[in-house]
């Protein structure tokens, strides 16, 4: 594969971003034409309106992503042919300043190839879906501009061959996530959610930045391959040494912990998970693409990319294994009590990402990457399905739904397949990838295995509950369109969504059914490891016990959930939408374990705002501004002196030249 096609994959959506930007700008200009702006070419206006309509925002993006997807698939086939070994593509120097060389380059191996296909594929389907979902929205063009920028950044993130470039795109996806969560910024909840997401992920990014500075100051390189080779060389007497680079065990551990901080923030793991449920305020296709399939998986990607680093330190790998296992179970519990369908899916996403996290922690690299891939497809489908439901009921509250099974058959079919896949029912894709992770856990860490297995049971329970509340029983009428918004004018008669929305759902359904078979025979495992060492030396094995056990558990939990909710009235009234037998526990869970209120009320308001922020504000007003204001006044005084020196006399000007020359000479000779 030549390098050009990878840059093409990156620049195709970027071009679409430029075009969508022009389209959005043109829309803006139509609203407010500057009174006299000579640089706005008036004569172009009719032409601009002709060619810069809303179609300019969406169509080029879809074409660009289709081409990029094809290229990614071609690359995937090539990469399989190479058995996942990294392609040797040189890096380019952007500029150097003294010692520091800033490079850009692409790194292609099995992991990148998978990610490219996932990102371009899901993004393509989500954009097609969005043309239907966002149709008629005032911000249609802005939406596609942001989506194009997001896809570009995400592709740049997975293509990067050095940590600096990766970090730049990492921050860019953070920015676009902020813009997309707050897409309907006139809603206070959306604006607050965007801010929260931005600030909380920033905490993790701080750790990542520190890790980057640390590794650069110790080794002088940010090249991913070099750092991995160094970590892989193994410690001798507490020092890693490879190819002239040298780093101590402690520094390597700290580097790994910094990366974990970044991953925990981005992938919404405990304790930084609190932003993801709120992020559901964004448009639903955004939740499908950004907050379930791609961006939140970037944290998992980061740790997979630096797999040798994580496993060069038992502290780091144990930490991420336990964070992951705990989050998997905790988030599954929280998903069980949500009444908002998107929030159920959001906690489910946190829980599933946690599976990938602990898989990496216990050494199941291939299983984590595989689950990342299958999860991207079926979770995107579930989110798009919830969007389809919302499109005709105007609400995400499952208490206002019910009975949509017959009214929206295609949505129901795809949502049901997604549910079965997520619950891990044979032979759907989620079954294969989740069981692989559980088998890895059984082999390496029994404690993590127990937590993971419990979470798997709960997964089946909360999804059955969500499907039941949405698609079975009586239809409860949805909600009328909020003033100033657009939506279904007649929610009491829900209808199936347009074809632009159902087609992507069906395509994703087919992928979700078949994607799991890739793993049979273990080919995927060897391929995705590529040049990476397998810590278990290929000891991965199939386990019938775990297969049967987890399937039985999922079926039993699903059935239990069904019984509880179906006969809810007869057994006991457990509060709204709950299936939890103990009221105190129910309250504890609906209050999200009090983690959100701890973070917002205590940490953010009391500690941070009261002490740190107000202290900084005082310092800024009194000390920093004080100095600046003082300097400014003194500067004005000096500047006034200009009137005496620079008085416009020609004599002064000529004198200064001759005299200046003489003074220089005298000064040089004397000193």
């Amino acid at each position, binding site marked *: 594969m030549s390098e050009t096609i990878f840059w093409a994959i990156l620049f195709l959506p970027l071009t679409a971003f430029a075009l969508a930007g022009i389209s959005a700008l043109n829309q803006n200009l139509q609203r407010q034409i*500057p*009174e*006299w*702006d*000579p*640089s*706005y*070419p*008036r004569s172009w206006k009719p032409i601009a309106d002709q060619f810069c309509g809303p179609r300019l925002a969406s169509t080029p993006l879809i074409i660009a992503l289709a081409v990029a997807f094809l290229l990614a698939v071609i690359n995937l086939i090539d990469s399989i042919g190479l058995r996942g070994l990294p392609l040797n593509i040189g890096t380019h*120097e*952007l*500029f*150097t*300043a*003294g010692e520091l060389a800033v490079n850009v380059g692409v790194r292609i191996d099995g992991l990148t190839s998978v990610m490219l296909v996932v990102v371009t594929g899901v993004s393509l389907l989500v954009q097609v879906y969005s043309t239907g979902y966002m149709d008629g929205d005032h911000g249609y063009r802005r939406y596609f501009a942001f989506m194009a920028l997001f896809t570009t950044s995400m592709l740049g993130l997975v293509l990067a061959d050095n940590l600096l470039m990766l970090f730049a795109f990492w921050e860019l996806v953070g920015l676009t996530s902020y813009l997309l969560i707050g897409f309907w910024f006139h809603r206070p909840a959306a604006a607050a959610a965007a801010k929260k997401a931005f600030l909380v992920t920033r905490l993790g990014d701080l750790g990542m930045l520190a890790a980057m500075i640390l590794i650069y100051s110790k080794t002088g390189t940010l090249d991913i391959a070099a750092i991995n080779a160094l970590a892989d060389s193994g410690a001798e007497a507490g020092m890693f040494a490879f190819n002239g680079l040298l780093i101590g065990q402690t520094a390597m551990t700290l580097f790994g912990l910094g990366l974990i901080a970044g991953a925990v923030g981005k992938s919404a793991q405990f304790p930084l998970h609190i932003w993801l449920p709120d992020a559901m305020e964004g448009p639903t296709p955004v939740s499908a693409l950004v907050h379930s399939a791609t961006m939140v998986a970037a944290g998992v990607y980061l740790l997979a990319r630096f797999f040798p680093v994580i496993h060069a330190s038992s502290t780091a790998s144990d930490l991420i294994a336990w964070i992951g296992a705990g989050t998997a179970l905790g988030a599954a519990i929280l998903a069980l009590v949500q009444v908002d369908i998107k929030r159920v899916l959001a906690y489910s996403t946190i829980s599933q990402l946690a599976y990938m996290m602990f898989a990496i922690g216990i050494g199941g690299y291939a299983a984590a990457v595989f689950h990342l891939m299958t999860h991207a497809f079926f979770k995107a489908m579930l989110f798009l399905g919830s969007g389809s439901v919302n499109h005709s009921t105007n609400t995400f509250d499952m208490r206002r739904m019910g009975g949509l099974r017959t009214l929206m058959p295609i949505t129901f079919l795809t949502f049901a397949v997604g549910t079965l896949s997520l619950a891990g029912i044979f032979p759907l894709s989620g079954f294969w990838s989740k069981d692989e992770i559980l088998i890895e856990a059984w082999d390496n860490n029994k404690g993590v295995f127990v937590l993971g297995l419990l979470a798997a049971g709960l997964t089946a329970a909360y999804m059955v509950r969500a499907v039941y509340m949405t698609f079975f029983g009586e239809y409860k009428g949805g909600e009328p369109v909020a003033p100033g918004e657009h939506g279904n004018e007649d929610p009491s008669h829900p209808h199936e969504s347009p074809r632009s929305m159902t087609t992507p759902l069906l395509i994703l359904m087919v992928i979700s059914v078949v994607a799991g078979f890739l793993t049979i025979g273990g080919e995927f495992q060897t391929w995705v490891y590529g040049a990476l060492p397998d810590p278990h030396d290929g000891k991965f094995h199939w386990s019938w016990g775990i297969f049967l056990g987890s399937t039985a558990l999922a079926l039993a939990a699903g059935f239990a959930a069904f019984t509880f909710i179906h006969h809810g009235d007869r057994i006991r009234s457990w509060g709204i939408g709950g299936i939890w037998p103990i009221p105190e526990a129910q309250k504890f869970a609906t209050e999200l374990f009090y983690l959100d209120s701890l973070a917002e009320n205590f940490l953010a308001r009391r500690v941070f705002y009261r002490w740190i922020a107000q202290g900084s504000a005082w310092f800024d007003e009194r000390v920093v501004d004080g100095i600046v204001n003082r*300097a*400014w006044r003194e*500067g*004005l005084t*000096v*500047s*006034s*002196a*200009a009137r005496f020196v*620079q008085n*416009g006399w*020609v004599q*002064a*000007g*000529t004198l*200064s*030249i*001759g*005299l*200046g*020359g*003489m003074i*220089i*000479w005298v*000064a*040089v*000779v004397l*000193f």
Partner: protein
Amino acid sequence: MLYEVNLLGPELVLLVVGGFLLIADLFIKDRRLLMGATLAALLGSIIYSAILLTEGHVGSQGFGGALVVDKFAIFFQILLAGAAMAAVLVSTETLQRTPSRRGEYLALILFSTAGLQLLAGSRDLIMIFIALELTSISQYILVGFHKDRWGSEGGLKYLLTGAVASAVLLYGMAILLGLTGSTNLSEIASYIAWQGEGKEEALMLAAAFLIAGFGFKAAVAPFQMWAPDAYTGAPTPIAAYLSVASKAAAFAILIRIFFEALGDDLLAEHWKTIFAVLAALSMFLGNFFAIRQNNIKRMLAYSSVAQAGTLMIGLAAISADRSELLGASGILFYLAGYTVTNLAAFTVIILIANHNGGSYDIRSYAGLGKKAPWLSFVLAFALISLIGLPPTAVFFGKIYLFETAVESGLAWLAVVGAVNTLISAAYYLRPVKAMFIDTAEDEDGQPDVARPSNSVLATMGLVTAGVLVIGLHPGLLINAAEAAVAAIFS
């Protein structure tokens, strides 16, 4: 002989077309035709320089060693011709105001550019002086081109102080000739290397006079007195041209003389101190005087004094440590970045002045951000670049110069530069504040006017793109600058 004429090609193109324009001025009045011919000449000059570069003439000398074609000279020839092209392109309004003297104006720009180009390639004191006079005399006329009160005052002051500067320069050259018996830079260098011992003080006197003479062209304090009046009085495109082209050529010849002829270790230690002190003085003087200015042209005049000071940091650094080549290539990089940035700022100022009755008062910019968002944005971008914030051209230039200062043991100078960057923000941000924060006194006061010519718009787009491209991908220009200075420091 013919071969030597070939080496003079880039300048000759300009001189020949300039002469033709003077005659054509008598019977051709079409502005487009005249401007087209001028632009074609400048483009031809650039192409000629490029051909000299690619066709293997690099390193050739002509006219008894008085003229050299090296990458250093070619870098400046292209930069200067480019700046002149921008100045011509934005001159539409000036030319409309003076229908009878169009050819004269354009020819003078060509002559001045030819002189500056020649300056960059001269290796002989006499040649240098002739080139300098060719460019200076053209500029005196151009500054006073509008024969109004301000134009006449600025032009006359420029002429009088310029004459003194030339005299001082000539003194310096005469002393150098008397001491070494040669006007050729390499011969002077070899004389100093073999017999310079014991004659330092006389050599230093000559050097001090040379610094005064060229410092005048570069508008380095304390030789900057002419700049505010000349900038204010000159037609604005000429002010833009003076602020970038004169400065570039002056620094080119300073680098060439001080490191080809007077670069001996015997003296370099002294240059370091002189350049460093002049740098600090220029930065402080230029920045402090700029704060109180309300006329944006006058403000940019003082700002250009401060920028010259920043450029001097590079000269000081490379005097202190000759292996620190980044000092010289940093100057070239900074000059190119500063040229596009300042041209962008001046282009917008011209456009705004054309539309609000020729006012250059910063206070009259109030509320412009609403009325002309694109224009205001470009001006704000250019001013932000002048401060030296990323992602712009001047940002990288400053980083390079400050870094070389630190590397060559002049950390205090880098600190002075950083402090001055802060001070400069105080006045560079004033127009930005006026445009985007202040509200206009009368909302509908501005008359609706015809949109400006395409040439001005195109120039604005090109130079703004230049600022951004250099800021985002500085590598290309850095390579060019490094190749250029390698011709002198090899």
